[in-house]
């Protein structure tokens, strides 16, 4: 294990050197960082040798991502390639934007290797029961399905409208919108598309389960003049889903247990929680189950990204294993360099393990100092 940890650290340091050289070199660098470097009292090209040296950059301020021109984030070395822009938030003021060229494909292809074929059969079709619009997730899940030889069916879901409804305390309307989203997914499931895999969020997973138990898929079959199959369609398993890839910070151990025991036939339908966002990519979890009280531990896709759990009063200080701290995120790809970004989340620092021999984080939840002012998990 020690050797694995050491090798992983060496790969991370090498990635740091390569990515910093790329983003700060006059030939390949990113306009934003080249401009920023003028104010530094150090030379990124000469003084950054390992992950710890990223402290020289201080913390990344996500406010830098608001507004344009967004081209300042496109590295000169990647000029001319087709660029996507993905946004977060956006219910008040300018949204934060991130440019992407191939990162989402790379991240999800890497994640694909962690999905067991037994539950996520190659060639099977997917249902994307999650947000659409200018978000990475919509395209990433579609790419994941295609990468695994399937086709992805999507619903329309605008999370910004849901946030507005919640802020207006229009709870009934928010519930109606959720029902509208579920109804779209029932229509897809009733369409004979042989869907076996699904992406969804905790809230939508629960809403889908509620709708199925209430017989709404069976109603949909009848309304389409189709016969309800023997055994009915009142559970996620019975409608043919075998694997669920799911994301969201509200993945508490109790919710995971509920999903496993009460929605997914005691784990007969496989679910893997993930933690991710537009800036980082996505972190995979250790397999979940009753043996460790449904604890969810996430590990970043190192060396392309790294998670640290730090003292919220001093971001340079990593907390001890098992201790609580704020999640500090670093992204190290050719497309995007984000050193030490304080996420809106907190959690407990987890030790490396065999599959991911680097630090992870468990118990992820909204950072307590921000919890009262943040609307999370709306869809």
């Amino acid at each position: 294990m020690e050797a694995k940890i050491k090798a992983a650290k060496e790969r991370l340091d090498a990635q740091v050197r390569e990515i910093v050289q790329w983003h700060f070199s006059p030939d390949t660098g990113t306009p934003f960082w080249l401009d920023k470097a003028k104010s530094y009292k150090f030379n990124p090209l000469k003084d950054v040798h390992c992950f710890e040296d990223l402290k020289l950059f201080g913390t990344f301020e996500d406010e830098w991502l608001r507004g344009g021109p967004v081209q300042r984030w496109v590295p000169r070395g990647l000029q001319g390639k087709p660029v996507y822009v993905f946004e977060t938030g956006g219910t008040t003021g300018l949204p934060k934007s991130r440019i992407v060229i191939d990162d989402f494909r790379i991240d999800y292809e890497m994640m694909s290797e962690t999905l067991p074929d037994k539950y996520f059969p190659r060639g099977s079709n997917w249902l994307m029961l999650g947000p659409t619009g200018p978000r990475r997730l919509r395209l990433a899940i579609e790419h994941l399905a295609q990468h695994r030889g399937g086709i992805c069916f999507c619903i329309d879901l605008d999370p910004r409208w849901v946030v507005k409804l919640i802020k207006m305390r229009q709870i009934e309307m928010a519930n109606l919108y959720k029902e509208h989203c579920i109804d779209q997914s029932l229509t897809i499931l009733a369409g004979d598309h042989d869907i076996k895999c699904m992406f969804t969020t905790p809230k939508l997973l629960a809403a889908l389960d509620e709708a199925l138990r209430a017989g709404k898929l069976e109603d949909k079959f009848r309304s389409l003049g189709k016969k309800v199959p023997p055994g009915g369609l009142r559970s996620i398993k019975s409608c043919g889903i075998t694997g669920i890839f799911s994301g969201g910070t509200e993945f508490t151990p109790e919710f995971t247990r509920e999903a496993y025991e009460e929605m997914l036939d005691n784990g007969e339908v496989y679910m893997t929680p993930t933690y991710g966002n537009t800036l980082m990519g996505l972190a995979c979890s250790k397999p979940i189950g009753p043996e460790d009280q449904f604890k969810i531990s996430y590990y970043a896709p190192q060396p392309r990204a790294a998670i640290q759990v730090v003292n919220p009063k001093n971001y340079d200080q990593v907390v001890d294993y098992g201790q609580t701290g704020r999640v500090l995120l670093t992204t190290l790809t050719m497309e995007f360099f984000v050193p030490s970004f304080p996420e809106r989340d907190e959690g407990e620092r987890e030790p490396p393990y065999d599959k991911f021999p680097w630090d992870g984080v468990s118990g992820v939840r909204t950072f307590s100092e921000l919890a009262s002012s943040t609307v999370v998990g709306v869809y």
Partner: protein
Amino acid sequence: MIHIPALRLGKLYKSLATVKLVHHVTGDSVAEISQINGSQIVRDISRMGEARAELQAISMAKMVAMVKEAGRIFASENLPCGSESQSFEDYIRCLSATTGSPMVFCKRNAGKVEFVLRNIDTILAGLTRGINLEILDAGHGTMDGRTLCFSPTCESFGAILPSNSPGVHSLWVPAIALKIPLVLKPGREEPWTPNRVLQALLKAGIPPMALNLCPADHAGAGEILRGAGRSMLFGDSSTTDPYRNDHRVEIHGPGFSKILLGEDQADNWRNYLDLMLESIAANGGRSCINVSGIWTPRHGKAIAQALGERLAQVQARAWDDPKAELAAFANPDVAERISAMADNLLQTPGAVDVTEKIRGSSRLVREGRCAWLLPTIVNCDTQHPLANKEFLFPYASVVECPQSDMLKIIGPTLVATALTQDQVFRKDLMNSKYIDRINLGPIPSTRLTWDQPHEGNLFTHLYRQRAFQQSSF
């Protein structure tokens, strides 16, 4: 430490998510409570049709007998409280420890719950206005030669409960006797009473599936209000306003209860001082049926002064002091915020805090981890923002208002004790759209008659009358 599990379809459920309750004085851990997800609540509510069928199979006579037996068990037997067996005395101590309500109040309020359980036949007679309860077994029947038919409006009854006064638990108890399954979300600091009542009902033989204790967050409360066909919601206006136009939800918010003196009795105000004091300060002044306004055509200043002099003698006392008259705030920040709100409103000209002048000290008392708010009497005019205000401590405004204007401007009033023998004014009071419960004559606002509805009629909330005909073939 005691662990209080949820009760899901009558079965104990220990969650991986818990909330810790501490003693309001020492800060020591008293208990941890399992917290369940909103989606778990929704799933259980979807099974309430089965639970309702189980209840419907039991005769009303047997239901009433079981609820009465639960009253005896509640007050006398050791009952499960999670992993422990809890006596009535231990229950009172725990209740007081986590809520800050003195033991003497807790005992008194538990007595109300026991009374309702033991006298459920009287309560049901009051709620149903004396119908033959067997009619609810068959769904129809005849009384005085007339056909009566009732059908339930829901398969389950939800209640979002508060932590501030255990007496409120007497309000939802009749639902189970009316054969409607219960889905209860306890207040954060007060799981004790609903847990104990449900355990007593279980022991008395009520089908387990109909008994659900769902400690949860706000989202969980929302799911109960969304999923249960009918429910009851306690809270301030910020909590209850979104449901104000939802006929499925019976709202128990601020009461703005008042004493109204008529022209004919205003000069006799001294005769009613004890009545006023009891109405303002009984049970720590925290209830919606406590008076928060005394409206009189004259002598406002003198009434305020007399009330102030008496209430200024009330002191903050420990939770286990039998002479305690005030409840402590387990979270002292809440007391500070309430006191600051009152002070802020006093900045508007036209109001005097009479009690503070007499007492010579602030209403806010802090000691260690807890805080108290001493009684406050404000003398102000009818337009002042403090004229129609309710707080979570003994507070009342004394305002002068001509009798002829009173009923136009009092606003919503849960209980009005009207001190008048003027027949015209009495008639006007009976016709007032603002008043929920009218006491004509010197009756303290806090004195309930148990055979009459309170803040809506639970029976008409849970059952609707419908037409029914049948003929032989």
